[in-house]
């Protein structure tokens, strides 16, 4: 019995004259990867920001595991299990990859008002951090400073941090941004594995990846949901083709 883990009802958000979210309804069930696609400026990142508590919606509700989390602050959302990765890489640049992952592990252990014991080599932090790095294939770069990692490795670390954060649902904002074909393929393989373990809400532009991974696809244009359903029906949908897929490679339109 698949349960709905994340439910968004009637979400509205305006910035001055721009409507970023216009009556958005969607949900994510356990065991599925639900992809959000749409042209630039469609409000995809604003949606993620509202889900993770960075922005409060003007109207509407967000339910996570039955709880109303509308307007809940970011740290609280994270504590409930909503782990997010960022479209524009947002890491701790002057720390190692391992330290970055360890940061993500730390909140799982409760409050951090511990003032004395050295946290740098604490196995309770380091072990799960290494595990998360291994999951994404970065274990050999654990002691490299993030600023020296390649872009692809940094995107992997973004994912690792979301994993290390004890997630119950993954909010991934364009994890494939800026990746070359080989790296993209690796990321797709990784996500395919992960979706067996975690429900995933994936925002992406990479259509190959989206159609390879998604169980459901929702199309967002100017903040509105213009279509939502399984990949086959989305691909065939006229308004979707017109608004968005027409911009993409022709081969996908033909299926």
């Amino acid at each position, binding site marked *: 019995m698949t349960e709905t883990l994340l439910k968004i009802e009637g979400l509205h958000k305006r910035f001055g004259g721009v409507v970023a979210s216009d009556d958005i309804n969607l949900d994510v069930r356990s065991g599925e990867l639900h992809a959000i696609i749409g042209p630039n400026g469609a409000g995809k990142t604003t949606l993620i920001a509202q889900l993770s508590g960075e922005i409060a919606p003007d109207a509407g509700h967000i339910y996570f595991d039955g709880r109303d989390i509308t307007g809940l602050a970011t740290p609280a959302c994270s504590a409930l299990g909503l782990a997010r990765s960022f479209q524009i890489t947002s*890491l701790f640049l002057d720390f190692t990859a391992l330290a970055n992952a360890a940061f*993500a592990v730390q909140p799982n252990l409760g409050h951090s008002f511990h003032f004395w014991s050295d946290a740098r080599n604490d196995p309770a932090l380091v072990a799960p951090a290494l595990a998360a790095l291994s999951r994404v294939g970065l274990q050999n770069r654990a002691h490299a400073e993030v600023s020296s990692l390649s872009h692809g490795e940094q995107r992997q670390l973004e994912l690792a941090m979301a994993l290390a954060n004890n997630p119950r649902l993954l909010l991934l904002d364009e994890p494939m941004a800026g990746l070359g074909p080989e790296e993209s393929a690796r990321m797709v393989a990784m996500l395919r594995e992960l979706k067996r373990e975690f429900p995933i809400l994936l925002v992406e532009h990479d259509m190959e990846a989206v159609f390879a991974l998604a169980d459901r696809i929702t199309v967002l244009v100017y903040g509105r949901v213009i279509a939502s359903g399984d990949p086959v029906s989305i691909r065939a949908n006229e308004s979707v083709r017109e608004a968005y897929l027409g911009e993409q490679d022709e081969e996908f339109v033909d299926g």
Partner: protein
Amino acid sequence: MKTWLTPRNFVVAALIAFLLLLPLYTSSTGNYFLLSLFTRIVILAMAATSLNLILGYGGMVSFGHAVYLGVGGYTIGILAYEGVYSGWLQWPLAIALSALVALIIGVLSLRTRGVYFIMITLAFAQMIYYVALALDRYGGDDGLTIHRRSQFGDWFNLNNKTLFYYVCVVFLLGTVYLVYRLVNSRFGRVVQGSRSNDRRMRAIGFATFRYKLVCFVIAGTLCGIAGALLANHTDFVSPSMMHWTRSGDLIVMVVLGGMGSIFGPLIGAFVFLALEELLSSITEYWQILLGPLLLLVVLYARGGIDGMLSRWRRD
């Protein structure tokens, strides 16, 4: 491989050894001026170390840190003026007040970021400075003389210059060790992470405001203790202790020595104050060199002296 035998560690060890052995020299030669100078250096190094906690590790650019020197100092001064000389009463109160002031300023300022934060801490510090100026009863602009140092019992006489010096050194080393443990603890990791990327820190689940506030209060309290020491050292307190340019001096010490390094502030205070003493005996316009020097350090030597020494190892 003796990885800890580096030029930097050598310099630090030499500095600490010097501080510990100084009184042997001064009591045998009777050169108490030197002892007094270094007492002041040690106290300000403690203040700089406390600033480094929030500035170097926490990324909170407080331009009003000298305020706590004043709060701690004036607590001692005002109580002494009113006839309360017992250190057992003065010091806990000085500590409590410093913490309280830091809490209030922190709560109001830490909701802001970047340049706002800098300006706000500056403004609050100036506010407290003006309050001290307006306190006619306690000397106002002229300051307040302290006729008796904090009393802790006959066996512990702070008027003994050598004893007082060692008390200050103990406080300095204790503060350095405390900061060392704090920044490497889980608490310290959150604070450092917030400096590096506050947004991500919150995204992974930390209510960073709370941690920064606690850090801010700890730093203010430590500086307040330094203020209490300073008051006892100079037997005098005045509003100028808290003027924002004093805060600027503290920042210079931290940056010059090396922000975000444990011994940086100690090195920085030493160099800054020793230079000040040296240069002012040559010319009264020595600050005209300090300004451009600071700019050069900012532009080309961001890691400060500690940074330069650490890089030396790799050559």
